[in-house]
């Protein structure tokens, strides 16, 4: 049975539709509501159903945009990058190695301060491949200036897509955002979604205004002349400045979202589940939240005091808030649906970042264990979660080695 991800306080009576749709379709609808101008499509599973939905919306006259089928992901992302520079609201997306094929374009998009919203249907990189979920694709841009967020329900996907446009296109920001939806588990599974009205979206989302950065004959500028060592550091520092206040902008936008749409997300950066009196917590991103919550309820019935923190925003990484949240627990187990070969303690990306945040954000030193789980679309099962919880409880008692374990692995 589908689990609602946040408490629905009251349903808006103002003609909000309710529909049973997939994560991909939810994002397609968000693009329609956001009145996106240019969309580029290229087939790769599992994100590409969003482009199929958009195609139908355009053909049925429900969405007015330039819908271009590119001949490769590199071109796909280059087209929208330049469209954005010329003032168009753009949408794009990819998965797995497709996202990697676009990497040159992805690298320069944040540096040029272009607010592209991209959907990543997280997929294992092939080779060895699989169409199922692995987070390494989206995570690959984490150092480059992209905002990164993970959602775990179609409702959250739709809402976050609208929030993404508002945040990315804020003049203070002007950086791209990759909205990650676990491949298959979110992109292709359906749940009930409240679809906002066009009026609500109009109130929430102003027009994209590039101002004096617009590429247009009335504004003669040269964008991205080649810089050298006299300039690169300062240019990068400008991008850096965004990260210093990005969290504030995000908080502002979520507060406005709640006012207009009535859905309360609370803390934008992460969601806590049964953490009030928890002794240990698990932490993770994306749709693994479903089996984790089921397992936690089961464990609670057995008297085990365990909770779950679901990270929404990976970039910007709300380090101080995470540290403040986690410091009170006896031990933390971070579930990485990704890998990071050769990393400290051989942990996944999220575990390494959490440890780093804790190191500077708190003097408390609860052990932070890392779990590698669910790669390539392998289910994170309820027994897996029970297993991880037990390991974390042992860590709370002092058994912290090994720091990283592979869960659900044969062998």
């Amino acid at each position, binding site marked *: 049975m589908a689990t609602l991800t946040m408490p629905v306080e009251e349903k808006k009576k103002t003609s909000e539709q309710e529909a049973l749709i997939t994560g991909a379709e939810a994002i397609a609808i968000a693009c329609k509501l956001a009145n996106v101008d240019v969309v580029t499509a290229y087939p790769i599973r599992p994100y590409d159903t969003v482009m199929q939905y958009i195609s139908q919306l355009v053909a049925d006259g429900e969405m007015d945009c330039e819908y271009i089928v590119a001949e490769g992901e590199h071109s796909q992302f280059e087209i929208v990058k330049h469209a954005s520079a010329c003032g168009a609201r753009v949408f794009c997306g990819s998965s797995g190695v497709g996202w990697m094929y676009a990497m040159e374009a992805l690298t320069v998009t944040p540096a040029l*301060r272009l607010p592209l919203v991209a959907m990543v249907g997280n997929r294992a990189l092939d080779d060895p491949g699989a169409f199922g979920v692995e987070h390494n694709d989206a995570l690959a841009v984490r150092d480059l200036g992209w905002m990164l967020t993970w959602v775990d329900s179609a409702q959250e996907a739709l809402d976050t897509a609208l929030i993404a446009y508002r945040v990315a296109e804020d003049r203070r920001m002007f950086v791209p955002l990759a909205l990650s939806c676990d491949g298959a588990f979110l992109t292709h599974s359906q749940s009930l979604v409240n679809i906002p009205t066009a009026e609500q979206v109009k109130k929430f989302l102003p027009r994209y205004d590039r101002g004096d*950065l617009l590429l247009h004959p009335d504004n003669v*500028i040269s964008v*991205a002349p080649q810089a050298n060592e006299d*300039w690169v550091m300062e240019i990068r*520092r*400008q991008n850096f*400045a965004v990260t210093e206040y990005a969290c504030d902008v995000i908080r502002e936008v979520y507060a406005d979202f709640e006012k207009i749409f009535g859905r309360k997300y609370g803390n934008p950066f992460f969601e806590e589940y049964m953490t009030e009196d928890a002794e240990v917590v698990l932490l993770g991103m994306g749709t693994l939240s479903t089996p984790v919550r089921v397992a936690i309820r089961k464990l609670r019935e057995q008297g085990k005091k365990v909770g779950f923190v679901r990270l929404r925003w990976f970039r910007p990484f709300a380090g101080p808030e995470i540290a403040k949240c986690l410091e009170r627990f006896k031990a933390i187990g971070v579930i990485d649906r990704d890998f990071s070969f050769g990393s400290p303690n051989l942990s996944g990306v999220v575990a390494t970042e959490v440890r780093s945040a804790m190191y500077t954000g708190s003097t408390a030193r609860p052990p932070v264990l890392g779990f590698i789980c669910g790669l390539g679309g392998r289910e994170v099962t309820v027994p897996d979660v029970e297993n991880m919880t037990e390991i974390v409880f042992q860590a709370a008692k002092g058994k912290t080695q090994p720091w990283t374990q592979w869960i659900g692995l044969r062998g």
Partner: protein
Amino acid sequence: MPELVSFASVEKFITDKLKNPLKVTSARTAYDRFTAIEIKPGQGNPEELFNFGLPKWEDMRLGVSIKGQPQGGPYEDPVSKTVGGFRPVRNELFKKYTTRTMRPVVNFATCTKCTLCWLNCPDASFDVTPDGTYDADLKGCCGCGICEAVCPVKDCITMVNESEFHDNDSQWARFKQDRDAYLQWLEKTIEEAEPVEKRSQGFRYRGQYQEQVPAALEIANKG
């Protein structure tokens, strides 16, 4: 000229390390062609090449963007004060004149206003004068010689050695101020100029390498 390293050492290095006798001859040819000019304090071109500070990151425009160049327009004849012609706005932050080894000198009296020098200059380094003739902008000109090559009038544009000059002043302005003096100076300058055949600016005619290479190799193998 201060010799930090003797040429003999350079030759030895090329022979020992690069083991290429042809390169030895090339080096010697280049060395022999080299002329040094002594400049005393106060001599030379006093113009400031460019002047800009390196701004702080907070003061730089966002999105790796900078303002483009505005459009130029007509300008004033220094003598008659009539306004006409066209002088483009040129990039103040990059002037190529310091790389120039030759500059074009122009005969405004014989110019037929054919436009070819102005049209074919890759560096937009000609002003259209109010008279309709073409004046080389010596701040931007890098001395390629295309103007001389395309000009259909004999001795109308001649490339001459840059080392004689210590300023980038407009030749047309000088011509307008004293036509006769300018034309006299021009005649003398052209007479003393090196012809195309003798210039050392790269490969110029069919068979040049064929001529030079065996001769150069011979010299290298002998010495």
